[in-house]
């Protein structure tokens, strides 16, 4: 090998060494943190779910799918799944309906002025106020609503109702009502987020579309159902998936707000709460992980299905 070649390749090599050295130095810490605290626990969870691990020091034994067969005959598990199903159906529907209504008013409800669609007066103010609950911690909101939902006349809501002669309602202690009360808090907190999200979608619709529709004599309802709704369908779909995934959580709210953590009589319990309880109250680590795996597959199935079902032909503008 001639000297010149050696020098040039050494020069090139040092450029490459520097580049790969840089890449490595930038990736190594984030990657280690991520693998140690995120990837490895997820991977272990699948294995732990196949063991009978109980207690902090006990040795886990491999028991195959036994945890899962036990899960199938566990009433509390099925109660939790039913609650997720109800949350999954009702929560996105209510939240999106309210948010769509308000974002339509705030963006297009004022009619067109100078050729541009405007919202009702004060729309900026409403948007700021509606969004605020979103920045509060769910745990804080939970404690706050406990005072509002108190079952006797000392509760804010029952205090108001007694003013118009309606007896105290057991918002959180009536088994048929408790989950709906909790859902109400979720809706209260998240409507503002979706108002802002849908507003962004509506702002992106070119104003001449509304202009043309108004010229053809379309009223507000036509404007909403025939024009706005189809044109922000993508955004609604994103909101639907977000709320659906939130319906599989609700841990903090149920844990803080409900009677006896998931009560009365498991009427508000959700899978995350049962996972947490099985693991950190009863030390049933294998069983808790099996529920975790079940929750994972439920979430993934929902995400895949909803992306498929709600897909419509995209309207190009």
């Amino acid at each position, binding site marked *: 090998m001639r000297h010149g070649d050696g020098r040039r390749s050494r020069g090139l090599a040092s450029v490459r060494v520097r580049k790969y050295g840089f890449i490595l130095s930038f990736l190594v810490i984030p990657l280690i943190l991520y693998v140690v605290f995120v990837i490895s626990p*997820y991977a272990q969870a699948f294995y732990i779910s196949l063991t009978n691990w109980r207690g902090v020091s006990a040795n886990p034994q491999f028991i195959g799918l036994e945890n899962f067969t036990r899960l199938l005959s566990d009433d509390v598990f099925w109660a939790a799944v039913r609650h997720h199903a109800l949350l999954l159906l009702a929560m996105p529907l209510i939240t999106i309906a309210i948010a769509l209504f308000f974002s339509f008013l705030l963006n297009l409800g004022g009619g067109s002025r100078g050729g541009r669609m405007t919202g009702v007066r004060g729309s900026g103010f409403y948007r700021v106020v509606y969004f605020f609950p979103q920045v509060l911690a769910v745990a804080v909101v939970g404690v706050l609503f406990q*005072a509002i939902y108190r079952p006797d006349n000392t509760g804010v809501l029952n205090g108001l109702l007694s003013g118009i002669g309606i007896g105290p309602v057991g918002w959180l202690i009536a088994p048929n009502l408790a989950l709906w009360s909790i859902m109400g808090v979720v809706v209260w907190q998240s409507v503002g987020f979706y108002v802002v999200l849908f507003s962004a979608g509506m702002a992106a619709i070119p104003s001449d579309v509304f202009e043309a529709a108004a010229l053809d004599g379309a009223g507000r309802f036509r404007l909403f159902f025939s024009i706005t709704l189809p044109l922000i369908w993508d955004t609604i779909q994103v909101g639907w998936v977000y709320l659906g995934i939130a319906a599989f959580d609700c841990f903090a709210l149920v844990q*803080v707000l409900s009677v006896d953590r998931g009560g009365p009589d498991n009427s508000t319990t959700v899978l995350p709460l049962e996972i*947490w309880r099985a693991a950190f109250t009863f030390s049933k680590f294998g069983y808790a992980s099996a529920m*975790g795996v079940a929750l994972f597959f439920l979430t993934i199935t929902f995400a895949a299905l909803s992306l498929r079902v709600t897909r419509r032909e995209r309207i190009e503008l």
Partner: protein
Amino acid sequence: MTTAPQTDTVRVARAPRAAARRRTKNPTGVFGGLSHVALIVWTILVVGPILWTFLASFKTNPEIVGDTPLALPHSFGWDAWGRAWDKAHIGRYMLNTVFVVGVSTAFTMLFGSMAAYVLARYRFFGNRAIYYLFVSGLSFPVFLALVPLFFVVRNLGLLDTHLGVILVYIAYSLPFTVFFLTAFFKTLPNSVAEAAMMDGASHTRTFFQIMVPMARPGLISITIFNILGQWNQYLLPIVLLSGSVEDKWLITQGIANINTSAGYEADWPGLFAALSMAILPMLIVYIIFQRQIQSGLTAGAVK
């Protein structure tokens, strides 16, 4: 519906009666009135509970538990606030949370932007694989990892320490941070970075002095997203900071605990003062940065 003047005249010429009918539907009509009622009702629903919490923190126990929970407090005193700050340790929890969230957000942004930059702008073997490894973290529910995560942290001797919480916060914030910032770094032009490299700047220097300032809008959005997400986190603190280290607790777990612990049942004003203390900083920060916060939190959905 009011329309631009020229279209109005066209319509009047074409169909005077239709135009007249349409004018009755303008925003000041019945529809406009009803929509304002709806908007005001929701405003009261949002503001009411928060305002009531602030007022209740100035009340006395009988005033809150009495039969008129909606009445105004008789006098405004800060006793309950003092009790919540000292005896319920809200001050302590608040400082802990500021420390933990401050450190972990700073390092989330540092590590997240470093990884995202390399993944967005350098070609090397394994680039796609590492990117998808990060992004895959977005699709797993954290409850699946709960048991093993607890033992990973325990085996490292980091249970009941702030360092443990900080490392876990960083790790769980990385997927979204990397996902968002990778897309952001890809949109930045190449020319400035290339010019800097030509002038002999190292890769590292190019990143910190050229690319990070250029990426500021994206970095700010995600910083806000991470601060709020970590500040409001409840599950991870209650798993990683047990009851034996109450002096290390974070604000959300402290508030939830006042609510459940029996000792405070006699002190409702204290509870509401504590709640107010947790809400107030968020309210101030929100009023100042509401535009950035709204865009930061919805950034993920718009992507």
